[in-house]
């Protein structure tokens, strides 16, 4: 796939990447670094949602629960079973993948609004389970004292994750990996299948594509990524409550993704950046945030359904009038 290496998109991407990398260096306050870290975590969740919704066309409202499930599995593994981060991380990811499989297989047989409602129901069930397994999860009180990754001994120097900066880079590292995965999916055969299924599932079946299998795999991948995001959240914040699995988290991710641009890679980070900065700018207490998010969702889906990225692409096209055959 030969792409013009100096396309504007590529340049912006590189600039953005560089910016992300130097953030700890330019953070004058701990709060700024903390905001950036939180934005990265939200980006992971938006990314996971984007895979099933943006690419697959299925609006899942279970992703808050999957995020929280991953966080809690990790939390339990490290606090109750004293398992090391580096082992607990993949274990929690796998566990969330299994939960995603259990949710996906029944849900994905349903179309449109039925799928949406069922996933919301599953989210509520997940929260109820977390609330009720009190001995493991601490019930409504939650978990505290969740440690982050320990040291990785190395040949020349050991990697230490005590500082906020190192935690930021750890999360950034995984975010880059997730973006890469996302890109691989979009570029691949299954990515083409997803786009085709989104447009006409029946036609896909009639050429022999096992659409259910494609959708389930996609949902499982999306669950794993959401869960791993939860793990990183838990290891960073150190404290968990059942609210961290609430469907409201899934709603917020939907808002951020819509703002950024459903289906776009850049949108997954643009959305959180914009919306979280707006919240901060408005000195918003949690109460106002809910209203702003709802309002933003409605306004955007009506006037700019492709989000900010879509809006920019549209303007770019208008300004530079690039015509020609599709590539």
């Amino acid at each position, binding site marked *: 796939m030969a792409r013009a290496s100096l396309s504007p998109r590529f340049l912006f991407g590189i600039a953005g990447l560089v910016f992300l990398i130097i953030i700890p260096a330019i953070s004058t306050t701990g709060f700024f670094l903390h905001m950036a870290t939180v934005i990265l975590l939200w980006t992971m969740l938006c990314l996971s949602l984007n895979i099933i919704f943006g690419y697959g066309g299925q609006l899942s409202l279970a992703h808050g629960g999957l995020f929280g499930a991953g966080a809690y599995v990790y939390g339990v593994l490290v606090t109750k079973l004293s398992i090391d981060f580096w082992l607990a991380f993949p274990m929690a990811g796998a566990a969330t993948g299994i939960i995603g499989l259990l949710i996906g297989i029944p849900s994905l047989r349903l*179309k449109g609004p039925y799928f949406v*409602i069922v996933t919301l129901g599953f989210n509520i069930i997940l929260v109820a389970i977390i609330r009720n397994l009190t001995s493991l999860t601490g019930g409504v009180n939650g978990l505290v004292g969740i440690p982050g990754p320990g040291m990785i001994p190395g040949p020349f120097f050991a990697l230490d994750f005590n500082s906020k900066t190192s935690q930021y880079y750890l999360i950034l590292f995984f975010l880059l990996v997730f973006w890469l995965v996302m890109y691989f999916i979009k570029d691949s055969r299954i990515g083409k299948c997803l786009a085709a299924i989104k447009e006409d599932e029946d036609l896909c079946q009639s050429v022999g594509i096992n659409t259910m299998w494609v959708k389930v795999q996609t949902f499982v991948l999306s669950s794993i990524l959401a869960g791993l995001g939860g793990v990183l959240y838990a290891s960073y914040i150190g404290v968990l409550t059942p609210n961290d699995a609430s469907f409201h988290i899934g*709603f917020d991710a939907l808002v951020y993704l819509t703002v950024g641009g459903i289906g776009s890679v850049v949108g997954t980070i643009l959305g959180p950046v914009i919306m979280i900065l707006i919240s901060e700018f408005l000195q918003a207490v949690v109460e106002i945030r809910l*209203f702003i998010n*709802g309002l933003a*969702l409605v306004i955007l889906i*009506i006037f700019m359904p492709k989000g900010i990225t879509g809006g920019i692409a549209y303007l770019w096209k208008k300004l530079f009038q690039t015509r020609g055959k599709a590539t």
Partner: protein
Amino acid sequence: MAELLQQVLNVLVLGSIYCLVASGLTLVYGIMHVPNFAQGNLYMAGAYVVFLLASLFRINYWFVFLATILIMGAVGLVIERVCFRPVRNAPHVNSFVVALGVLMAIEGLIVIFFGADYKEVEAPWKRILDCYGVTIGGQRLLVILGTFLVMAILQFFIKRTKTGMSLDAMSQNKELALMVGINVNQMSLLAFMISTGLAGVAGALMAPVSFVYPAMGMTPLLIAFAAVIFGGMGNLSGAVLGSFIMAGAQVLSIQYFSSVFSDIAIFGIMIAILLFRPKGILGGRG
């Protein structure tokens, strides 16, 4: 025996509320093909309107009740025009997202003005009736009677008035309705306003019964959805039947499971209904 009657009453009360919410839900889906996820929060908003007018402004409950219906109808007008009309011709998914946005905005607005704590509304009828060992509070009786009355009016409207019959026709066959000159825009708006009005009635009836709080609409939303799907989307009598069945299932599961697990049980039942009710759900292998 008294125990059984008590539970039956519980089912009737809960079922009535779900019935109102579900009727609105199925009406809007049948006519506009939009699953109004915000319906639960419209019910909640109705309860808060009552709280505002009856508890804060101390207006007589009965006036407030009527006012709530009108106010919620007006809210429906605004929401349909401003939010749902623009996405009518967009991909279906967009209307889902709009509905979720409305859901969030309503809750957000309520939280801004009223906060997140639990509020109480005084019942107009404080009498507690006691017969055959069964107690029922006046308000709970009012819920049952009020719902019955409203549903009877709705039924009359749909089956006996010209506008109502047009609505009915539209929910069965949109193209045909268009051809005989039924104004689709007006009908959609009417359906939506009726739907929010019904949610408002439910909220107004329920406000004095239990606490009023921002999240109170979510469970009824899901249960009402299950009821609607059980009865067939767009089918009014199916929604009514489904509502009472779901209420029955809920009361049973609270009875036999601890309240902790009853949540899981009720949603498990809901999901089971969604999966096994064949009509229009599974992808056309029928």
